[in-house]
C-alpha cells in the first residue's frame, strides 16, 4: 500500500514534467505538438551521448540535454510551426511526421538497439517493504521544483503574464504591444527544454530506444484531454490521477495494461466532459 503511494507519487511527478510543456504549447498557440515525445527522446539521447559516450559530468549532461531540447523547440517552431500556425491540423500532421523522421534519424545514428541508461541518482530507497529507486524520487523532487518555478514564472513575471495574455485573448495581447510570435517562440523553447529534462529521467526510468517517444506523447495527450487545460496546477493534478492509476494497474492488475487504462480514461472523459475536468484551455 505505502509502496503504491510512493511509487505513484514519484511517477506522477515525472508525468507532470512530461506533460507541462505540451499543455503550455497548446494553451498559448492552440496547437498540439505531436513531436513532444521526440523532445523527450532527444533529451535522453543527448544526455546519453554526453555522459555515457563522452564521459562528461552528469550535471553538464543534463544542461546539454536541456539546451538541445530548447534549441530543437526553437528550430521546430521557426522552420515548421510558424508557417502553419493558422491551421492546427497542419501543425499536428507535420509534427507527427517530424516525430517519425526523427525516429528514423535516431536509428541511423544510434541503431535501433535499446541503450540502457545509468541512473542519474543511483541507489534504492528501502524501508519496511517499500522500495523506490532514488532516481525516480529525484525526478519527482525535480519536477516539483521545476513546476513550482514555472507557476511563479507564469504568474509573477512580465514574460509569464504576456504568455498568459496570449493564451486568453490574442487580440487583447497584440493591442497591448505583445508580439504573439515571440511568445510562441518562447513557449516552444521552454517546452523543448522541459521535455528534454523530463526525457533524461524518463529514459532512466524506462529505456532509451528510438520508439520511446510514443509513451510520453500519450501521457501528454491524456493530461491535456483529461484536464482540458493550460493550468499548470491542473496538469499537476491530472498527472497524479494518471500516475496513480498506472501504478495501481501495474501493481495490482497487469503491467501490460497500464497504458490501456489511460486511453480508456481519455475516451471516458471525452464522452462525459468534453471540455476536460478543468474546463479551460487558458494558461
Amino acid at each position, binding site marked *: 500500500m505505502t509502496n503504491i503511494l510512493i511509487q505513484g507519487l514519484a511517477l506522477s511527478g515525472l508525468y507532470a514534467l512530461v506533460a507541462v510543456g505540451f499543455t503550455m504549447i497548446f494553451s498559448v498557440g492552440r496547437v498540439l505538438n505531436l513531436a513532444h515525445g521526440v523532445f523527450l527522446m532527444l533529451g535522453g539521447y543527448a544526455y546519453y551521448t554526453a555522459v555515457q559516450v563522452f564521459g562528461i559530468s552528469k550535471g553538464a549532461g543534463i544542461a546539454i540535454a536541456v539546451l538541445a531540447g530548447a534549441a530543437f523547440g526553437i528550430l521546430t517552431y521557426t522552420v515548421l510551426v510558424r508557417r502553419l500556425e493558422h491551421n492546427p491540423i497542419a501543425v499536428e500532421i507535420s509534427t507527427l511526421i517530424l516525430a517519425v523522421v526523427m525516429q528514423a534519424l535516431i536509428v541511423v545514428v544510434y541503431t535501433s538497439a535499446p541503450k540502457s541508461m545509468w541512473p542519474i541518482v543511483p541507489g534504492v530507497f528501502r524501508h519496511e517493504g517499500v522500495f523506490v529507486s532514488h532516481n525516480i524520487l529525484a525526478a519527482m523532487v525535480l519536477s516539483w521544483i521545476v513546476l513550482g518555478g514555472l507557476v511563479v514564472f507564469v504568474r509573477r513575471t512580465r514574460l509569464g503574464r504576456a504568455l498568459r495574455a496570449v493564451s486568453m485573448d490574442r487580440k487583447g495581447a*497584440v493591442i497591448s504591444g505583445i508580439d504573439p510570435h515571440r511568445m510562441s517562440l518562447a513557449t516552444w523553447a521552454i517546452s523543448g527544454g522541459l521535455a528534454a529534462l523530463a526525457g533524461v529521467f524518463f529514459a532512466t526510468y524506462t529505456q532509451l530506444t528510438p520508439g520511446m517517444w510514443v509513451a510520453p506523447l500519450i501521457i501528454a495527450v491524456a493530461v491535456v484531454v483529461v484536464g482540458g487545460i493550460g493550468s499548470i496546477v491542473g496538469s499537476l493534478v491530472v498527472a497524479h490521477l494518471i500516475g496513480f492509476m498506472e501504478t495501481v494497474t501495474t501493481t495490482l492488475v497487469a503491467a501490460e495494461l497500464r497504458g490501456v487504462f489511460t486511453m480508456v480514461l481519455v475516451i471516458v472523459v471525452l464522452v462525459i466532459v468534453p471540455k476536460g475536468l478543468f474546463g*479551460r484551455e487558458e494558461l
Partner: protein
Amino acid sequence: MAFLEIRNLDAFYGRARSLHGVTLDVEAGRIAAIIGPNGAGKSTLLDSILGLVRTTGEIRLDGVSLTGRSATEIVRLGVGYAPERGHLFPFMGVRDNLLVGAHTAPRDAERNLRRVFDLFPVLEERQNQETGTQSGGERQMVSLGRALMSSPRLLVVDEPTIGLAPRVCHDIAAALRRMNEELGITILITEQNVNFATHLARDVLVLETGEIRLRGTADELMNNPHVREAYFGH
C-alpha cells in the same frame, strides 16, 4: 500638420473593402469622435490605426508613418487602444490585466497604475477580481485603464458606452475628459450614442458605409438635417 493624419485609407477583409478613401485629421490635445451606424466601418477604422487590418493609404502619428508597422511598434509609438468587446484577459485579475497593458512601458507601470486607480477608484478595490466575473461597466474601465498603461499619446476607444447605464456613461465621459485635460492625451472615439459623442468631443465625423459623409464641430453636426434625421429621427 495634425497629430493623427489619415489619408485616403482603404481597408480590406479578404477581397471585401470596408473603408473607402477615408481621410481625417485629429489635432493634438483634442477629443474627436466618429459616429456611424452598425457596419459603417468604425471598428475597422480603429483596427487599421493599430495595423490589424490590411490597408492602403497613409496613417501618420505626429508625422511618423504607421503604415506597414506591427501593432507592437504602433503601441510603442504611443497609441493605446480600447477595442470593441474589450478583449480583456478573463482569468486574470484586474491588476494583472493592467500590468499586461504595461508590457511596452514597464518602467512607467507603477505611476500608470496609480493614475488608473485614481481615475477609476472601483478598480483599486477590486484589484484581484478576475475580469471574466466583472460587470460591463467595470470591464470598460479596465479596458481604458489597460490602454493607459502603455503611456499613450493617442488613445483610441471603440464605442465606450455600448451597453452601459447612463450613470456609468457619465463616469466614463468624466474619465476620458480627465485623461485629455490632465494627461494631455489626444483621444479618438467611435460612438452610436450621438449625444455622448457630441458632448464629449469637439470634432465629429460621420462614417457611413465605409466613407466619411460629414465632418464638423459637434454644434454644427447637431444642427445638420441629415444627422438629425438619421440619428434622432426628426
